[in-house]
């Protein structure tokens, strides 16, 4: 090390200009950096100081069971000080291991990061609840609520996965969600059938996506521009029709019948996981199926292999007879349909009518989840859960009265994403050809 003179120059611009070979080299060359160990240690210390040493001495109580469970478990009680201290020491243990790995020039494994996030979240939760006026929350409710709030995020980020894996950046998730929400509301109202509404939402999302695909693939317009503009367009069209059509006759056009939760007998009574897995609306069940299907599809099937090839190295795919732009077009369309279903969640499950901007920026959180989940359906799913959790916690902390302003809870997904793209996820990139139109000679 001592012989290495590191100049203070800026990093080189991203590779990508010199052809596949150089880029391949750059991708494979993931240097083991200090970034992750340092970041983990910093967070570990924050946990130690705030959640441990400066923790309130109240006992935080976490309810496990709800009244409808078929057997009841007692609430878990944790002394905030002791709990915080133990967890923060564990966190520092993990970060210490990360430092050790770095000194051995090895990468920090994914499980470590995940474990760190889980423990940190737990420590944070104990601290928040322990410091509240009413230091008691229902963990079961918190988690179930998080899953519910995560549903549109999961669909949105799956749309992102489908688009980016094939090489098209999808900034229009917000528009797809909003379009889906609007269409679901109006169609379900008119037909008085939520299933048709759900289907119509998928179509609406797909239509938004087709515009994205058309402009970015056929007319080679920058994908980010199309995405940004589409969000505005969908917001404008839905807002316009909301004011002119829906508000004129909301009984007819804006009172969709909802999709109620379907309980699976017995299983839904299991504490904590029962409500999450077995007491969901149709959209909720579809979410689990979609995550699995997309994951299996991408990594185990012929379709997935081709999709990923097109997103990584379209030229190679082309030389093997794969129609790059058609693959892109249909995948982006499929992504839009998935996001559209997610949008129907707002008007068919969460609230029973459409309002302007009902998606409220969740498309961007979905985008964040996609990146935080490293372009992997399962990763995106858990990232979306984490963000749903933050969203849910935000409303809960307002109720139980903690010293943490709710605005900071709301800020959390965005802060986490900034840290992810700048630190934890670092330069590990998405599909190599994402964002680059494919032009044949």
């Amino acid at each position, binding site marked *: 090390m001592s*012989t*290495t*003179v*590191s*100049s*203070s*120059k800026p*990093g*080189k611009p991203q590779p990508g*200009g*010199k*052809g*596949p*070979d150089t*880029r*391949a*080299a*750059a*991708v*494979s*060359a*993931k*240097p083991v950096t200090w970034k992750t160990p340092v970041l983990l240690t910093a967070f570990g210390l924050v946990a130690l100081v705030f959640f441990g040493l400066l923790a309130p001495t109240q006992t935080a109580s976490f309810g496990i069971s709800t009244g409808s469970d078929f057997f009841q478990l007692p609430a878990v009680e944790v002394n905030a000080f002791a709990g915080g201290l133990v967890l923060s020491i564990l966190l520092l243990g993990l970060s210490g291991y990360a430092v050790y790995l770095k000194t051995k*020039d090895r990468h920090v494994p994914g499980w470590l990061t995940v474990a760190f996030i889980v423990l940190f979240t737990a420590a944070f939760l104990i601290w928040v609840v322990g410091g509240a006026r009413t230091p008691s929350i229902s963990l079961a409710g918190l988690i179930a609520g998080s899953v519910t709030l995560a549903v549109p995020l999961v669909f949105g980020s799956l749309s992102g996965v489908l688009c980016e894996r094939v090489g098209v950046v999808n900034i229009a998730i917000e528009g797809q969600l909003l379009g889906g929400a609007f269409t679901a509301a109006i169609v379900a109202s008119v037909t008085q059938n939520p299933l048709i509404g759900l289907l119509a939402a998928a179509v609406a999302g797909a239509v938004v996506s087709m515009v994205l695909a058309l402009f970015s693939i056929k007319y080679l317009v920058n994908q980010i521009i199309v995405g940004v503009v589409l969000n505005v367009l969908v917001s404008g069209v839905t807002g316009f029709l909301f004011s002119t059509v829906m508000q004129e006759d909301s009984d007819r056009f804006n009172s969709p019948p909802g999709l109620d939760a379907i309980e699976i007998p017995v299983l839904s009574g299991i504490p904590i996981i029962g409500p999450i897995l077995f007491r969901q609306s149709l959209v909720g069940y579809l979410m689990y199926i979609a995550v699995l299907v997309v994951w299996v599809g991408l990594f*185990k*099937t*012929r*379709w*997935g*292999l*081709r999709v*990923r*090839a097109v997103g*990584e*190295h379209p*030229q*190679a*795919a*082309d*030389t*093997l*007879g*794969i*129609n790059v732009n058609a693959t892109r077009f249909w995948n982006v369309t499929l992504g839009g349909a998935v996001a559209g279903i997610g949008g129907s969640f707002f008007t068919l499950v969460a609230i029973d009518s459409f309002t302007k901007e009902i998606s409220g920026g969740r498309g961007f959180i979905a985008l964040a989840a996609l990146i935080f989940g490293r372009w992997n359906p399962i990763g995106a799913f858990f990232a979306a859960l984490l963000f749903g959790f933050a969203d849910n916690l935000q409303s809960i902390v307002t109720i139980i009265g903690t010293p943490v302003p709710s605005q900071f809870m709301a800020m959390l997904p965005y802060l986490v994403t900034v840290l992810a793209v700048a630190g934890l996820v670092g330069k590990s990139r998405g599909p*190599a050809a994402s964002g680059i139109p494919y032009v*044949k*000679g």
Partner: protein
Amino acid sequence: MVRVLKLELRGITKRFGSLLANDHINLVVEPGQIHCLLGENGAGKSTLMNVLYGLYEPSEGEILIDDKPVSFRGPGDAMAAGIGMVHQHFMLVPVFTVAENVALGAEPTKAARFLDLDATRSRIKEISDQYGFDVDPDALVEDLPVGVQQRVEIIKALVRNANVLILDEPTAVLTPQETDELLDIMRQLKASGTSIVFISHKLREVKEVSDTITVIRRGKVVGTADPAASTTDLASMMVGRAVSLVLDKAPARPQEKTFEVRDLTVIAPNGQHVVDGLSLDISRGEILAVAGVQGNGQTELTEAILGLQERVSGSVRLDGKELVGRSVKEVLDAGVGFVPEDRKVDGLVGTFSVAENLVLDLYDKPPFAKGISMSPAKIMENAKARIGEFDVRTPSAAAAAGTLSGGNQQKLVMARELSRPLRLFIASQPTRGVDVGSIEFLHRRIVAERDQGTPVMIVSTELDEVMELADRIAVLYKGKLVGVVPAGTSRDVLGLMMAGIPPEEHSHSPQAGQAAGRTTINTSDAEGGDHA
């Protein structure tokens, strides 16, 4: 490998806008032959093969297989017809495994279109065993050395039962040893009935392996040749005139050493030592050519000198000043002129005007700027002067540099770098992709710079260019200096050195070589100043 087919191209013409890349090309590839397409860089060989492979549609002409016209709407059709291609830039997905890359596009599947990679794995094993490839189906392609990646490409074609295999400049990235192995593989393929179209501009390989040679120049077939033809004949056919292998240049008159590299090591992001403990020096008024197979540290060496590399140790001194650890700007300001190997990527901004590109690294210096205020008039004035001086063919000084031909772009970069007093001039691949007329011009300018007393470093993978320009030749292999030998060193010795074998068995040790070079140079100094 049962079906043997005859391939014919008739009157193939391909235009890109006003550019005629292929002009009525006729070509017949007989079954079971190695047919070489010989031509300079830019002669239109790759374009022709992309037409044959269905990637481009010909503007005119037709392709016949076994005398029946076929029309390829895409590579899929070409593959179905039994044509496989290994592209110059490999078409492999870096983050996929070998098996995934081989399977892609023709995936064996189980029920419900689930991938059956086991089937692919066993096919890879089969082919590997047959041809003695050592390829692990589960390795990630990005982790494989270039030579192995090339084999993966060949496997890809064989898995699809290619009867005709197109190899586009396959040896450009290989060491001489790897090249020999590849030639063996080609012979084996031929023996098993596969025809091969071998695209190259390297005469030795072509002569060694071909059954038929078709020479292409400026998009036209200029004739066919027998592999037994002499190298000089082939070369003159390829270049279109009698090739004078020696540039008309005066012997160097080296003065004091002003540029010294000591123990330079460059570490790539993946931890590899891409330049490894390298030391060399250049005197004023001499050209040191750095030779080697592409990818042996030449790029990193020049980038390290310029300050573009991040992890650099050792010392680079110019006029006694240390350059390591300085910013690019400081290095340029120290009087280093730099022509990067890939001018389009590193040398110019395609959408900027010619005039702007001519001040790309001088824009903030007088007379082009006062403070942060630039002077368009001065920039224009400068452009007119440089365009005239270097004979840059451009519609106007305001034309976008990207619209110029490769040769003119290179002249532009060269004009910019030589337009200020230099203490060191580095040019990487100074004539890559440049037409013959411009090559000569550029070479003369480089020699002229030398004769003004500037130390010059040329990096080239073209041995001809190295031998033509160099006063001394340094050969790199895997980031290490194999040796420094004088200008007249034979091609064979240089070839061995490029494979990493030091010239020990020959009478010149590197030191002796330098001394010898000096002596000859010092004795004849008659017309040194002529080019200045």
